[in-house]
């Protein structure tokens, strides 16, 4: 199939060939793409999927946009990733694993040898320090979240196809939480990373009465120092705050500082 010519306001819009790949992950972010049954058909009219192992047998190797999920935990993944990078014009990291290492990077808290032994005993197993994609290749665009939010992905992909620049919100989750008319989790006696986490998920967790765990990583100029004080004021331990902040890897640069 050749890309179907479409146009928007007289500007020709190509239907880009897109491929999906996964490194170490739960494959949930890819599934989110299939999970949008209400808009799946529109999505498929916008792009041509040439490679999506989780959903199709055919494998195409000429694609312009590669969506890569998962983090790097074994050396063969680096080679695969580099090949993908070579082929793709645009490499999009999807989900916290690809952007920050995700929950997988919690492994980095320990010595590799201990980790191997804890799970596999003496059986030899190949693994390495968990890294985000950007540790090995240039990532053109990051789509945050664990999991990614379908509405956000759809908007981003539409903009990508149109050639519009993609701006992530520069404000924290609190903005969306207020938009959703929620009661602040701190008032309900629960900790929340909303004030320091980049918005875009439409305050997914706080709207369900669960404090934010920071899966989308820090907002620009996150005021973590102040958050520490607030956690303390509300009688949450430093450990509780750290548990959340280190869960998805987005706050890694703050963690070392905080653990001192």
């Amino acid at each position, binding site marked *: 199939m050749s890309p179907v010519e479409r146009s*928007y*306001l*007289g*500007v020709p819009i190509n239907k880009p060939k897109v491929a999906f790949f996964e490194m170490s992950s739960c494959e949930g972010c890819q599934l989110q793409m299939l999970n949008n049954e209400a808009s799946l058909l529109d999505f498929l009219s916008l792009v041509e999927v040439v490679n999506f192992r989780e959903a199709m047998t055919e494998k195409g190797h000429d694609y312009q946009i590669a969506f890569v999920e998962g983090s790097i935990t074994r050396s063969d993944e680096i080679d695969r990733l580099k090949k993908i990078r070579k082929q793709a014009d645009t490499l999009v990291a999807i989900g916290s694993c690809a952007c920050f290492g995700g929950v997988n990077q919690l492994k980095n808290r320990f010595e590799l040898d201990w980790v191997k032994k804890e799970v596999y005993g003496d059986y030899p197993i190949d693994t390495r320090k968990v890294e985000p994609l950007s540790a090995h290749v240039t990532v053109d665009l990051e789509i945050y979240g664990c999991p990614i939010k379908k509405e956000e992905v759809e908007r981003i992909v539409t903009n990508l196809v*149109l*050639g*519009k*620049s993609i701006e992530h919100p520069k404000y924290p989750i609190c903005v969306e939480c207020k938009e959703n008319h929620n009661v602040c989790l701190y008032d309900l006696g629960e900790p929340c990373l909303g004030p320091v986490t980049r918005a875009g998920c439409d305050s997914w967790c706080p709207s369900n009465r669960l404090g934010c765990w920071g899966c989308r990583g820090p907002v620009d100029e996150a005021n973590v120092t102040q958050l520490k004080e607030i956690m303390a004021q509300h009688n949450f331990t430093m450990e509780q705050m750290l548990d959340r902040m280190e869960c998805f890897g987005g706050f890694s640069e703050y963690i070392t500082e905080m653990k001192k």
Partner: protein
Amino acid sequence: MNKLPFIDVLAGKEEHGRKSDLASFEYTYQAEITNVYSLTNTEKLYQIQIIDPKERQRFCFKPGQFVMLELPGIGEAPFSISSSPLRHGDLELCIRGAGNMTNFLSLVPRGTKVGISGPFGTSFPVEQMYDQNIMLIGGGLGLVPLRAPIFSVLEQRSRYGNIDIIYGSRNPSELLFTYQYDTWRQFDIDLSIIVDEGDETWNGPVGLITSILEERIAAAGDISQNTFAIVCGPPIMFKYVCDMLVKSKMPIQKIFVSLERRMHCGRGKCCRCNIGSTYTCLEGPVFDYWSVLNLKEAI
């Protein structure tokens, strides 16, 4: 029984062939891009005509005012009108590809429909300047808003004294409207151009705009009585140029500048363009230098 009546705020408000105030808020003139010319690598000149002939005739603006240009789904942004006020709804906008909307705009073909709303904002008081000398000082893209007052002045050239245009640009390839320089000079206008960095094609002066300005001020002699200045350009240029004019005794209420801010509405609602608490879109973009000095964080 106590069902409250629903009040339709827009009903029956089309009076005298013009929209009511409320209905005009989100009203866009449908306009067509009739021509596009590349001026430099990044700037293009768009000729845009309001489609409805009646609306086109009714559309009036003053030099220095801006319009909001809308590309559905892509964005809406403010642009100074760069054409002569006499031409009503036959507009020329000179636009630099700076982001989303402006880059997409540079791709759309002739004949594409765009939305225009406005005109908005304050203008350069060219009537006040009758019988006086005018210095029009522009840096980079700052020449764009100067073009409308230049047209106005040229159209009534005999009503003004000496006219100086002082224009600075980073390098010769970024000079705008080069094709018009001769016409301007024919109208007895002193046009001085300086670039930060010359190249093989360039044999004019090289340096900062202030060095030329200094010369022009020296040539003009006393500018404390009968000279106005219109200044437009990047914030850093403003500061130096205005300082120099003030030092040379030009009264601050005779210096006019055009400021740029982020704008989402152009109608004094979104607050994005506020300086201190002044709406650039309502009380500006044209300010006299006294007001600028009064504004916190203006430049």
